[in-house]
């Protein structure tokens, strides 16, 4: 049934967040606010060197300090490495080497933070300094310093290819080339995750409270490392505050686990703001080159992107490629290669829009350049070539190879839906593109120093990936017709807990305020992907809907005898079971779940109905979310400053579950994406030290720094997503650099290719300095 025919009660509605009241009253408890009885405070001693061997480490003075309960070094943790499913970390908790400035060397648990800090000063470490390497391209060369314990600095190449690109370039009327460099963006979060670990029952049980976004994945990693049954390791994912990937989970949690073990007391490790910037995880630095061949009529024929990205010290990714080729599946020849390379910089890993933000920027500039060469409107060139539903989805096989090679691979894998064409049409119309875009020769000729320009760009991102595990969900319907939903999401604050409640309530036919969710406790929820990779609405949402459907089936079965109808002919709406054909046949859910004895106790016949599922989504129809952005800006060619005047986003995320939540996500992607493009950069010196680990020197946009974006959605049902919904959160951050680069070119005639486009880089590009 198409959605428009269905009368939706909770899906597609602007409902309040489930935890809104907690948030506005200040009782929403983040890890920093959370305590457990008997808890100690932990602090971490970090390396002052980018690469060094620890020759000797003496903790005796620290241990002797009154108030210190435990000190751990690499001698107190397993000699084996641990690795996360999403390869954001591979390494030991600590070993006898340090690999970046800020690497963990030791940790202290004490009765308070001040005592722990004093103890850190008493730890004596002797280092043998080793040569270090900070640049991924250098680290790939033979003879470069070895960063990881084993394996080359450069991971095996990941390739997505089809056709023959060289042949394609020979056939093309026009071939353009380009290179981009993306410096390191930080998640720049002021929520300082402070995990708390507590061991019990003679070290056979472990509870870990942490602001992590992938609790099930963390449980697996911890259980593997501490060698306990998964049933004995409990992760409680506390609200993360702004995460953007930073708090997915990190070695920080493992440090806490081992410090608590040695202390025989619960321990909470507390971070300073500079450690959050320079000691955890950031976005990759990426060097991207590419070529694009097009015909004069605008057909793209050959597309090549080569990407080298740094994993920092402990990142271990080579599959940051997410959707780049999928937006252009009609191109006859494609070649995309990626190298993840270890360096002696702070670890790099998943950050909102990983891969598709950075590589997409390179590709979008190529598309702009090709459009100019054939003198075509950049919107038009994209419209001619962009993906449509049913087009091949080629990047899927690398995920299959990495995570699911034991599973059969479908013969044909296609994109389930893609409204890029409609996004472009809507954007052109709402932005007034035709009026504002004066053609390629229109470079601003105003005589003053301030030049105006307009630009646009596109992007696509995944809605989770296949082969990384099936998600479970449980829906428990109580005797009074209310329900509890259990699905693993973590609490990232992106509204997905509310979204899941809307999906379950809609499927079950009960009001939104009759449903509660537990999404953060691994003892309660089945395994799930968590809030990662724009996954939760689609993957978890599919599980949630399936579990709700299962519960509903059971309720309708019970109702059969009461209504003298077969369950197939019954449905539930607003808590009332009704016959689809006999309108007078209706009873509230409570009638089948409980029987009341007047003035006495509620005797529940079926005190609880449980619906559950462990499910996955199709492996041959892959939803992707896409966006087209339009911008007008001013460049001050004297100062190099860029001022955004107008910004418009159009996105296809299928049917929206909660438009308020969705708009907020697009607002966030905009602020962070424009930040990436214009101002955000972690700066390091030759020794690998981060020079700006604070908000005074790492600037993010404040309210009023940018015009509010105008937001439009193309709401078309995706055929496989729950109620037609797809992922949403990451495409919006991927588009700004491409759109802003075109607008700057339109204003000044120069291409910016290194992010962020700081005034200094703009002036350099203009040849003024």
């Amino acid at each position, binding site marked *: 049934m198409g959605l428009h025919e269905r009368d939706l009660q909770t899906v597609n509605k602007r409902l*309040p*967040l489930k*935890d*809104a*009241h*907690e*948030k*506005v*009253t*200040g*009782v*929403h*408890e*983040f890890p*920093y*606010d959370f305590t457990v009885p008997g808890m100690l405070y932990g602090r971490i001693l970090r390396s002052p060197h980018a690469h060094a061997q620890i020759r000797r480490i003496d903790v005796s003075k620290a241990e002797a300090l009154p108030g210190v309960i435990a000190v751990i070094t690499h001698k107190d943790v397993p000699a084996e490495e641990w690795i996360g499913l999403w390869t954001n970390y591979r390494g030991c908790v600590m070993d006898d080497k340090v690999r970046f400035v800020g690497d963990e060397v030791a940790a202290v648990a004490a009765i308070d933070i001040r005592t722990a800090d004093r103890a850190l000063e008493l730890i004596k470490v002797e280092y043998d300094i080793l040569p270090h390497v900070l640049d991924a391209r250098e680290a790939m060369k033979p003879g470069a310093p070895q960063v990881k314990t084993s394996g080359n600095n450069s991971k095996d190449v990941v390739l997505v290819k089809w056709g023959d690109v060289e042949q394609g370039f020979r056939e093309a009327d026009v071939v353009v080339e380009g290179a981009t460099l993306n410096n390191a963006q930080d*998640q*720049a*979060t*002021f*929520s*300082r995750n402070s995990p708390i670990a507590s061991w019990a029952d003679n070290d056979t049980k472990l509870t870990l409270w942490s602001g992590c976004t992938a609790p099930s994945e963390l449980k697996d990693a911890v259980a593997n490392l501490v060698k306990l049954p998964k049933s004995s390791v409990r992760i409680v994912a506390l*609200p*993360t*505050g*702004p*995460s*953007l990937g930073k708090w997915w989970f990190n070695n920080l949690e493992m440090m806490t686990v081992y410090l608590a073990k040695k202390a025989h007391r619960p321990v909470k490790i507390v971070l*300073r*703001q500079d450690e959050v910037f320079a000691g955890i995880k950031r976005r990759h630095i990426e060097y991207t080159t590419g070529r694009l061949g097009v015909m004069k009529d605008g057909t793209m024929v050959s597309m090549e992107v080569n990407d080298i990205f740094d994993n920092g010290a402990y990142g271990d990714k080579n599959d940051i490629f997410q959707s780049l080729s999928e937006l252009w599946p009609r191109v006859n020849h494609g070649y995309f290669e990626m190298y993840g390379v270890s360096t002696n910089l702070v670890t790099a890993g998943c950050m909102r829009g990983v891969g598709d933000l950075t590589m997409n920027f390179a590709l979008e500039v190529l598309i702009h350049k090709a459009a100019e060469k054939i003198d075509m409107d950049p919107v038009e060139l994209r419209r001619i070539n962009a993906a449509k539903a049913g087009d091949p989805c080629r990047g899927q096989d690398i995920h299959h190879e990495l995570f699911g090679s034991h599973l059969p691979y479908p013969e044909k894998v296609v994109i389930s839906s893609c409204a890029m064409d409609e996004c472009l049409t809507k954007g052109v119309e709402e932005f007034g593109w035709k009026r504002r875009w004066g053609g390629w020769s229109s470079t601003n000729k105003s005589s003053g120093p301030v030049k105006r320009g307009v630009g646009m760009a596109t992007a696509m991102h995944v809605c989770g990936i296949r082969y990384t595990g099936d998600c479970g969900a449980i829906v428990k319907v109580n005797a009074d017709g209310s329900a509890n939903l259990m699905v693993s999401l973590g609490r*990232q*604050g*992106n*509204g997905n807990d509310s979204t899941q409640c809307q999906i379950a309530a809609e499927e079950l036919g009960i009001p939104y305020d009759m449903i509660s969710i537990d999404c953060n406790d691994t003892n309660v929820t089945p395994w799930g992907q968590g809030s990662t990779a724009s996954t939760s609405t689609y993957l978890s949402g599919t599980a949630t809907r399936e579990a709700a459907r299962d519960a509903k089936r059971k309720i309708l079965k019970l109702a059969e005898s009461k209504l003298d109808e077969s369950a197939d002919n019954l449905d539930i709406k607003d808590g009332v079971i009704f016959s689809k054909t006999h309108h007078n046949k209706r009873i509230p859910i409570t009638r089948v779940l409980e029987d009341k004895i007047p003035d006495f106790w509620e005797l529940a016949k079926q005190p609880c109905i449980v619906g559950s599922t462990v499910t996955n989504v199709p492996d041959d129809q892959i939803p992707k979310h896409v966006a087209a952005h339009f911008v007008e800006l001013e460049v001050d060619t004297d100062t190099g400053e860029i001022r955004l005047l107008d910004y418009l986003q159009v996105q296809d995320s299928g049917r929206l579950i909660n438009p*308020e*939540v969705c*708009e*907020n*996500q697009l*607002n*966030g*992607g*905009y*602020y*962070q994406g424009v930040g990436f493009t214009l101002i955000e950069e972690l700066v390091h010196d030759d020794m690998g030290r981060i020079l700006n680990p*604070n*908000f*005074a020197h790492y600037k*993010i*946009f*404040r*309210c*009023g720094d940018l015009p*509010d*974006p105008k937001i439009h959605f193309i709401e078309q049902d995706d055929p496989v997503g729950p109620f037609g919904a797809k992922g949403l959160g990451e495409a919006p951050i991927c588009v700004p650099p491409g759109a802003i680069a075109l607008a700057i070119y339109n204003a000044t005639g120069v291409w910016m290719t290194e992010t962020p486009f700081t005034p200094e880089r703009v002036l350099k590009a203009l040849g003024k300095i």
Partner: protein
Amino acid sequence: MKKSNKIVVSLNVNGLTYEVLAEPHAKLLEVLRENVGLKGVKSGCEEGECGACAILLDGEPVTSCMMLAGAAVGKEIVTIEGLAKGGKLHPLQEAFMKYHGMQCGYCTPGAIIAAKGLLDKNPNPTDQEVRDGFSGNLCRCGSYPKMVKSVLEAAKVING
């Protein structure tokens, strides 16, 4: 054992007087959170940049991480916990809920406090004045557009 050099600090918080024992150099943020137990005052950067720790001091929004507790003696402190009266939320809190003036919620208590400071002085602010009022509050989630809307809507309610 070293003799404690703690001092007694008397603070007026949300209309009540608290006497707490604190180090002379203790920050107001720490004392409000740890001694008074008001954890709605969020600890963010602790460097005066993010505004998560904002409170009203004699009606002015200030970052409590940058102030010594002793400097607040004799002044009226209002934290996010002091906004609801008798279980009834302040119109700003209602508006933030209704218009989704938040995502993760980390900046929210500080942002609502800043907005209260503004509306108490300027009950009918312009869009630009609301934005200026948030100049000390970072929202990494980028919820600014709906934060501004929430304040403007709350102002309408307050002004009847």
